[in-house]
């Protein structure tokens, strides 16, 4: 029975190795492959941490199993050795994790800078947000500049409005300005690996480059109130031409004066 526990704790590292080896290729960790350029880098960081954690887990479990095995096979006459108060051990288990953590924090700096530091944003988007995404309990209100104009932080005449649907160009870097009208929300697009809190009073630029045109789910990832679950929208990535056509349509709709309908009904 004593040996059973050693084998038990040796068994789990084997499972962990197997899972970690198979998981990336089977897509067990993520809802889909990353579909934005930053997404690949973020996934890369995730897998790096996964490897570190797996190695640590396997190492500690192997050591645990070894200690149990030794204890099980030694005779009962031998005295136990207590490690409590061993400075040498304490220094080792402080320095090794510290080294690992510093390594991780230095490694991710570049990616973090690309996501968060405006001066590291691609030149083409740095000062050119395509839309303002205003989170509010419990929906996303979108404001586009009038076609041909720049987006300003305060609403301008001719701005276009929509709700719960953002049209952005695919295959080129895109930036939106994220704001909130009330409490904290978070702009989360799982398939793009984009997640950014919206903080009251701040205008937070968020950039991404969607690789493929298509529809992407946008969720609120910050518990923002009783209707949090309702805060679902979609991002529609389209060719730049498609986006500008959409905006033209939206502009027409928004200037609707109901008179075209009169003409149509007269003709009938």
């Amino acid at each position, binding site marked *: 029975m004593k040996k059973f526990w050693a084998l038990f704790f040796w068994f789990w590292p084997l499972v962990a190795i197997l899972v970690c080896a198979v998981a990336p290729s089977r897509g067990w960790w993520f809802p889909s492959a990353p579909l934005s350029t930053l997404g690949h880098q973020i996934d890369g960081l995730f897998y790096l941490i996964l490897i570190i954690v797996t190695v640590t887990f396997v190492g500690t479990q192997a050591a645990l199993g070894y200690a149990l095995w030794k204890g099980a096979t030694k005779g009962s006459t031998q005295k136990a050795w207590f490690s409590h108060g061993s400075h040498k051990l304490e220094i080792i288990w402080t320095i090794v994790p510290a080294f690992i953590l510093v390594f991780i924090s230095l490694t991710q700096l570049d990616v973090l800078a690309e996501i968060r530091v405006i001066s590291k944003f691609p030149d083409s988007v740095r000062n050119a947000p395509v839309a303002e995404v205003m989170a509010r*309990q419990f*929906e996303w209100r979108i404001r586009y500049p009038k076609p041909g104009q720049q987006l300003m932080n305060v*609403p301008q*005449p001719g701005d276009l409005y929509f*709700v719960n649907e953002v049209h952005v160009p695919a295959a080129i870097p895109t930036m939106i300005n994220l704001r909130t009208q009330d409490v904290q929300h978070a702009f989360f697009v799982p398939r793009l690996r984009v997640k950014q809190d919206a903080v009251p009073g701040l205008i937070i630029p968020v950039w991404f480059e969607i690789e493929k045109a298509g529809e992407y789910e946008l969720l609120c990832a910050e518990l923002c109130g009783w209707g949090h679950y309702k805060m679902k929208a979609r991002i529609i990535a389209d060719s730049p031409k498609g986006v500008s056509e959409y905006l033209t349509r939206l502009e027409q709709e928004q*200037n*609707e*004066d*109901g*008179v075209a309908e009169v003409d149509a009904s007269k003709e009938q």
Partner: protein
Amino acid sequence: METSIKITLKNQVLLGLLALSVSGCSDGDSSFAYSQRTQSLIKEAQNGSEGGPGVKQTLDTRFGNPQQLKAWMKLPVEWGGSAASVESFAASDTEARIKFVAQEGVTLPAVASSVQFVTGEGAGQSIALTAWDEKTGEAVLAGVPDKTPVSGDLCVIDGGSTLKSGRVLYMRHCSHCHGAAGDGNGPTAQYMIPKPRDYRHGVFKFTSTNDQSKVSRNDLLRVLKYGIPGTYMPSFLLMKEDELHAIVEYVRFLSMRGEYERRLVNELASDYSETAVSDRLASEKASDIVEELQSFLKDEFPATAETLGDDLAEIWTSADTEDAKILPTVARVEDSAESRQRGRELYLSKTLNCADCHGIDGAGNGPQTVAFEKNPVTNELYPEAGLHDVWDNPNQPRNLQRGIFRGGRRPIDLFCRIHAGIKGSRMPSFKNTPHEDIWHIVNYLLSLQFESDPGTIAAKSVAPSETGE
């Protein structure tokens, strides 16, 4: 599809009602709450007697409860289901097989779980289907019916499917604010200003229909899709079209139920409310009043209840017709400084008097916002200053400088708000104002948000006394 059901069923006087049970609901017995006004009637008027049903029973037999909805076919609700007729019927001791033919213009559904017979001997009975083939229209009934259907009998397959799915969606997404009966008093309603809409008046604020008309289906759909900025009503844009459609029908069903309840109570309230009866007791005997009520409930009330339903059907049907729709006769006047100036003059003019509520600079702070208003029903002053809506909630005029337009920001939306007014609120209809003038005002309103100092400019450029005479 639904239209043909209505046409088919309209002639069937016998079957005025379809029972639509919603199975698979385990959320306990929920019921449609009766309104305060119903509960202010004396018990005999609420509950009726052997001679004739009271308000509660009249309502329940026509609308049911959330588990067991009823379709009062007279009402213009798209209940859902496919109209068909029986082609052949064969029954053994244990099994009954039936073959349906779809009515013209109707396609049989891919999945079907029940059939309700509309004509023939078995009219009114509803039987579950255990097997269904959409291609041939052949089905196996769950039991052998007592009364044998014959070829040519009309029936509805999965009658009320739209209403039932609307109920499920409504309970999940809407009822926590708007309440199970649409009384605007769900559990989360207490945290909200403004309050969620109470449908039971049958009044909706933001419509594209003229001032005397009800809300159209399309108006409700727009509100569902795009939400109401400036309130807690969120957008449900991501729902599928058929889901939105089902919710719209269910909301209309609840509105009609509530409005029907109000109208029934109106028939009784002046003579048989608790307060009216206590006044009458000064000169009359209690037993006489009850006897009089009972004979009214027996002789007149059933016919009145039917007529009220007809009235309701008529006004709700007409809301979706072209006649009800507001159609500007002139195109929007091009937005220019002159047009805005003209709009401002009209805004300040004595005839339109927008500034009385919305303030001289559109900030929503006109003199009416600090005056005490009388409740038009009770004739008592409201406890707080300012304007109130028909739901008795404080309802201050919109601050037009903020660029938040609850009913939509398209020029046509603002045009409709001015033309028809905002129903249920103190915003009156300006339907007699020339359309061109309305467009000038629209241009002015849309520009207000971008004025740096709207009040000063207004005072400098136009003195209110010079205009609008």
